[in-house]
């Protein structure tokens, strides 16, 4: 079973997939996304998008997101290792003791606590985003981050899409991307810092356990033991209540002051006493080194996750997806449609014949009054109508009577006036077929569609009637629309 993509992978891959998905017909996307959404129980929007992603594209797992995720893991590991090595090295240097002189607690605190607090303050400068006046410092701090370097190199060489490549760009134009990059960089730096402190702490414990260390304090500054004792009490305040043994008392402070000029300067008999500083140094390292970094790492992890989610949800393609998922699906179209296939029939296939003489007429479906029919035949067809019958509008027995009447004289041309605006129905075709049967094959039948009023027959009407007459396949039945 394939593993679920992480939030980060979804944030990279979902928008890229949705971009390509724009070539899928919209109606299909709407139906698909709504149907998937119906199977997803209510949850926050990020969870819904990720569940949708699992259903919509189960095969699209190994995208740029997985590659960038591996890079993130790699960078995190490298940062952790680098932090650990540095922590061990610094601790070894800070606790270095060859027996000639005690470990100077002042230098130790400066290295393991003081420097770290300064770096912590510098790190905190990155948290509020772009601060006027601090921009260049922030840029330096950012540019120094090896994670940002690694991401830049990776984006250039890994052929990641522009969307994916710009994610780790701290100078991105997209605010959500900037937030993401900031917390990602902080996450990496705090990973290194936590590992630094852990390694330093473990190294210190090992040194305390497996070797004998003597601690003292020494400074050029004019510091009275009483004042140093007060400072030490203040530093130890956080753990004083539950670990009183880790708080050096005034006597210890006074006894452990040394001067290098005095070649040791501390009575040898007090070595056991001088060793009593170690709980204080370890507690200081935990309290002022490890704990703030752990808190910052936790904050960075939480904020990074939120920024990753925001990056996903602020993408306009994801916004559109959620809209499709959350809107009721309305469908109104049919599943299938009629094939629209009408063979082309040339309009000029039956040439207009010159007609002179008499004719008999049939008015179909009350297409025009009797007088108007005579006039129309004279003016447009050049034929004089001898007699007129009607059919098509009343009962079928009227049609039969008309056929009986027209059958009597088989010598005259027959004009069938039809309403040009009405479609030629199959019952007209039936009628014309029977008419042909009754009058025989030699009589010319002129189908004459007439307009409703003082207008010419339109091209659309003419084409419609031409097609109907052509379908009769009767060489002596032809169309006359009166068109010039």
């Amino acid at each position, binding site marked *: 079973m394939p593993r679920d993509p992480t939030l980060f992978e979804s944030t990279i891959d979902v928008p890229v997939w949705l971009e390509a998905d724009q070539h899928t017909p919209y109606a299909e996307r709407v139906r698909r996304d709504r149907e998937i959404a119906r199977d997803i129980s209510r949850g926050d929007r990020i969870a819904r998008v990720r569940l949708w992603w699992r259903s919509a594209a189960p095969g699209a797992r190994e995208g740029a997101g997985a590659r960038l995720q591996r890079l993130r893991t790699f960078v995190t590991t490298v940062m952790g290792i680098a932090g650990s090595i540095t922590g061990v090295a610094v601790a070894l240097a800070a606790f270095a003791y060859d027996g000639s002189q005690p470990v100077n607690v002042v230098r130790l605190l400066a290295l393991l606590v003081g420097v770290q607090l300064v770096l912590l303050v510098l790190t905190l400068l990155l948290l509020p985003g772009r601060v006027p006046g601090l921009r260049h410092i922030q840029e330096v701090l950012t*540019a120094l981050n090896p994670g940002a370097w690694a991401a830049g190199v990776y984006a250039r060489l890994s052929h990641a899409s522009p969307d994916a490549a710009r994610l780790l760009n701290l100078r991105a134009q997209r605010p959500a991307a900037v937030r993401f990059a900031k917390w990602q960089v902080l996450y990496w730096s705090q990973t290194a810092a936590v590992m630094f402190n852990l390694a330093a702490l473990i190294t210190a414990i090992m040194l305390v356990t497996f070797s004998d260390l003597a601690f003292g304090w020494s400074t050029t500054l004019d510091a009275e033991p009483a004042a140093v004792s007060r400072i030490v009490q203040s530093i130890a305040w956080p753990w004083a209540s539950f670990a009183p043994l880790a708080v050096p008392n005034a006597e210890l402070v006074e006894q452990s002051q040394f001067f290098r000029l005095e070649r040791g300067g501390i009575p040898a008999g007090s070595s056991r006493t001088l060793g009593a500083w170690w709980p204080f140094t370890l507690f200081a390292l935990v309290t002022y080194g490890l704990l703030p970094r752990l808190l910052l790492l936790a904050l960075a992890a939480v904020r990074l996750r939120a920024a990753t989610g925001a990056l996903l949800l602020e993408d306009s393609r994801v916004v559109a997806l959620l809209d499709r998922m959350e809107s009721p699906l309305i469908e109104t179209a049919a599943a299938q449609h009629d094939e629209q296939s009408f063979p082309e029939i040339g309009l000029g296939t039956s040439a207009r014949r010159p007609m002179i003489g008499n004719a008999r007429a049939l008015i179909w479906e009350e297409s025009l009054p009797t007088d108007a029919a005579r006039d129309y035949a004279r003016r447009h067809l050049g034929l004089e109508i001898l007699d007129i019958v009607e059919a098509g*509008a009343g009962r079928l027995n009227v049609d039969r009577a008309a056929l009986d009447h027209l059958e009597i004289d088989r010598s005259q041309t027959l004009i069938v006036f039809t309403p040009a605006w009405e479609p030629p129905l199959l019952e007209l075709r039936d009628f014309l077929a029977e008419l042909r049967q009754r009058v025989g094959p030699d009589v010319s039948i002129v189908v004459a569609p007439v307009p409703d009023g003082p207008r010419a027959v339109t091209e659309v009407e003419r084409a419609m009637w031409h097609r109907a007459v052509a379908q009769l396949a009767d060489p002596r039945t032809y169309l006359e629309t009166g068109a010039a």
Partner: protein
Amino acid sequence: MNRPRLAIVGHPNKGKSSFVATFAEDDAVAISPHPGTTTQARTYPMRLDGEVLYELIDTPGFQRAREVLAWLEAHDRGAGARGAVVAEFLTAHANDPRFHDECQLLTPIVEGAGILYIVDGSRPYGRQYEADMEILRWTGRPRMALINMISAGDHIDQWRSALGQYFSIVRVFDAVRADFGKRIELLRAFGAIDERWAVPLNRAADALVADRQRRAQRVAGEIADLLITALTTTVIVPLSGRSVDDEARAHAEGRAKLREEVRRREVLSRRTVHEIYHHTGLEARESAAAYLVEDVFSARSFSVFGMSQTQLALTGAASGAVVGSAVDVALGGASLLLGAGIGAALGAFGTLTGAQGLAKVRVLGLPLGGYELRVGPITDPNVPWVLLGRALLHAKLVAERNHSRREELIVDAQAGGHLADMIDAARRRRLDVTFRRLRGGRELVADEREALLAEIATLIDAR
């Protein structure tokens, strides 16, 4: 089951399929001036999340109505059995090709569908329609007549008077030109055909109205994204040399790429708007606007690993300072931080000079850096207004277009050019601030995008 089912019936070529295409928003419905285009009864269900709220059934037209009526009259057993006689006709002629169309149109009615009889009110009434109407009366099903207006004539009164003999409800409805409001009004009116249908039809109408509003929102989002993309897009062209000619060539290439990118995005946006309104087959013609990317921001830059010279210098300086600080520590502070200072200066200088060589290094066939010309974003302040105006005009035309229309959609590219002069000053100012922000190279946060979307949605409503 009280699901409303409406059979759309009538003579051929009276707009039955146009009516269905408009109501079902389906531009794949076959519509042509040739009678007999519709050969099968076709159901168009309106589904809300899969639940069918009503069904429209497009049917072929009557072809031999008088013959059918003659058969019915010949088998008449009194008014109470007329519906059964119609059913018997269907049974008797189920396999008769002569009455294929009549069987197709009468079957859904016999199965319980209501009747929507459509005529063309722009052409005169004729007695030949009486056979159709008489057959429909024989079915005994609830029915409504719709007077469609296919062309310019007006015979509505004549039709009203004739239809009134057979139908208790007669309405005029232009299937090709009716706007959305009229469609919804008519949909609710179908509830009068059968009172049990009122609830599902009103529910369907409410859902369609809500969906229409969502579509307008989606279109607003699409237009907002088009503007955001068009105003923030930049293209990077590698510079082969540093001469004026090289730069001019790269600038022309960059502008062409930028123009193509904006055009591509605009075409995609138009297509999405078509799809939102279910006009998937719609062909739109729009005159091109070549002037769009004449005024663009362009800047030459140098980069390695995507880092600018300033970033490289800062990074080098910081790295040098760290190394220098180590020297200071080693000397126990005797150097008075001189090591850090010198290290920073050397680091910055070294990084910048070394970067020139590093840029030429190729890894996996790709140079690590070099000089390039960034072209964009578009700086012409009129461009967003022109894009917005054109997009709004296009959206309006598409939204108002019925699915029974088959002609090409023509959008005048210049028509939206004066949008800025037509909207109120406060809105213009707000939009202008957003456009300037985008031109300045800053993307919008979600709230800002929502605000832009709301402004565009208001403009869509107003037009």
